[in-house]
């Protein structure tokens, strides 16, 4: 087996005595879609927040392409090729859609304050390139017509695509997607699934957290199941669906998940 793009080893996280993650280990292969599923409160978002530098886990390790990634700040991870989207939308509402996506290139561009202030050589060329790449990304995700609108004015589903565009535009090695289909209707979910597959086919590895089972089972190459902060199963979608503990966890949590939806 080749080196996984992402590997978690015995990751633990607790909040004031509450164990949110205990000894979680799994790996995501390069060029694949790996999904992390589980009932509400299973620790899925916590896991992503640990990997992406928002939380500092007390124990355990996480490796990105074989190198330890814990302790790196979010912006350093972005520079190394790990970007993410958020469960509760974090679109920059007061900036235009185009600008939102241009920010996505921040980690792969370099002209700082002095260049900007005095328009030093190289500044304009970089700006043009950023603009061009951002516009291409808007085309790819069907957002071109909304480029100049303040992102906060967009419909929910469009804002989700803005977040996706922002995280994708820098051509990361690994994208972490926190519930990309949450709040989307059936048609939008279907189109999101197509988009995610297209992204994977471009060679970008995806780790996604999801509630929507049809999406997960339809597109994932590998599925990891968390419950109460522990990994209870992993395997191909078919294997996981047949796993007795998974069925139990989901039936047990069904009422809660239903009320939440």
């Amino acid at each position, binding site marked *: 087996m080749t080196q996984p793009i992402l590997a978690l080893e015995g990751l633990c996280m607790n909040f004031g005595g509450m164990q949110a993650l205990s000894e979680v280990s799994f790996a995501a292969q390069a060029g694949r879609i790996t999904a992390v599923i589980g009932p509400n409160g299973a620790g899925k*978002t916590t896991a992503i*927040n640990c990997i992406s530098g*928002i939380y500092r886990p007390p124990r355990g390790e996480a490796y990105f392409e074989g190198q330890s990634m814990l302790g790196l700040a979010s912006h350093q991870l972005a520079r190394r090729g790990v970007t993410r989207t*958020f*469960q*509760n939308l*974090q679109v920059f509402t007061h900036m235009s859609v185009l600008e939102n996506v241009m920010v996505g290139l921040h980690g792969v561009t370099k002209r700082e304050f002095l260049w900007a202030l005095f328009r030093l050589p190289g500044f304009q060329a970089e700006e043009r390139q950023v603009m061009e790449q951002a516009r291409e990304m808007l085309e790819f995700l069907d957002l071109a017509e909304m480029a100049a609108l303040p992102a906060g004015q967009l419909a929910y589903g469009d804002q989700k695509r803005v977040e996706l565009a922002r995280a994708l535009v820098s051509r990361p090695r690994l994208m972490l997607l*926190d519930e990309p289909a949450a709040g989307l209707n059936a048609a939008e979910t279907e189109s999101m699934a197509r988009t995610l597959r297209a992204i994977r086919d471009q060679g970008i590895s995806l780790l996604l957290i999801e509630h929507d089972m049809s999406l997960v089972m339809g597109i994932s190459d590998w599925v990891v199941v968390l419950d109460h902060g522990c990994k209870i199963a992993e395997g191909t979608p078919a294997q996981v669906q047949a796993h007795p503990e998974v069925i139990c966890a989901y039936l047990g949590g069904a009422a809660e998940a239903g009320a939440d939806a």
Partner: protein
Amino acid sequence: MTGWNEIAQYTVSGLTTGAIYALVALGFCIIHNATGIVNFAQGDFVSLGGLMMYTFLVALGLPVLLSFPLAVASVALVGALLERLALRPARDKRVVILIFITIGASILMRGVFKQIWGKEALALPSLSGEYPLRLLGATFTPQNLWIVALTLAAIVALGYFFQRTTVGKAMRATAANPRAAVLMGIDTERMKLYSFGLSGFLGALAGVLITPIVTVSYGVGVMLGLKGFAAAVLGGYGSFVGAILGGLALGLLESLGAGLISSTYKDVIAFLVLLIVLFVMPSGLMGRGERSRV
């Protein structure tokens, strides 16, 4: 050589001013919890308390037992008016805009105070005599005792109000989660009004109590308000226990710093310690760190 007596003396005066700061800080917290903003007119409630007391007690010659409640109640009313006239109608509810509305209101209020009471410092007699008392090596006046006692009484009353009364509980619910409070049928707009009234009450109490020691004029509230704000921040903004601790800590820090190190630099010492505490504990002594869910 600094003796025990001096330290005891500094402690007494530190606790006295600390109690005043605590009252002001509590006013900041109550408004913050109901509205999310800093009310920079809080200090002006303090000076208005002293000024109103002067009017009722000295100018009109009313008895203390009547003047005191009248002064405090009138400032509570002004607090409520401020909320109703300047903050409720605000078109933009962004915190920074609302804060600067209170700054504008503070300038306006000081202008009005200057018109009514003039620029001169006005003095008030102590609540009961100037006869000095001695305890554990420290000398203090009955006014010191009044300040500490009435501050304690106010804290106990506030505790009762927030824990036991329907309105108090509704105010706490509004602070904890405004949206849920609305869903439970709580009129959160009314709670904002009450919070300004209550803060006016506390500010005026501080003003009535401190004036016999330091006199009052239209602008004294600025520094007292700032100190109260610093105390609230030091304690952990929004926490009542923190406000009280922050107030006492700041009062002691100033008085011991002035007595033992340098009286010229007492404010520098106090604010320097405040900054250092914030660098180490970014949400104050009793504050809960805010973590937004992403």
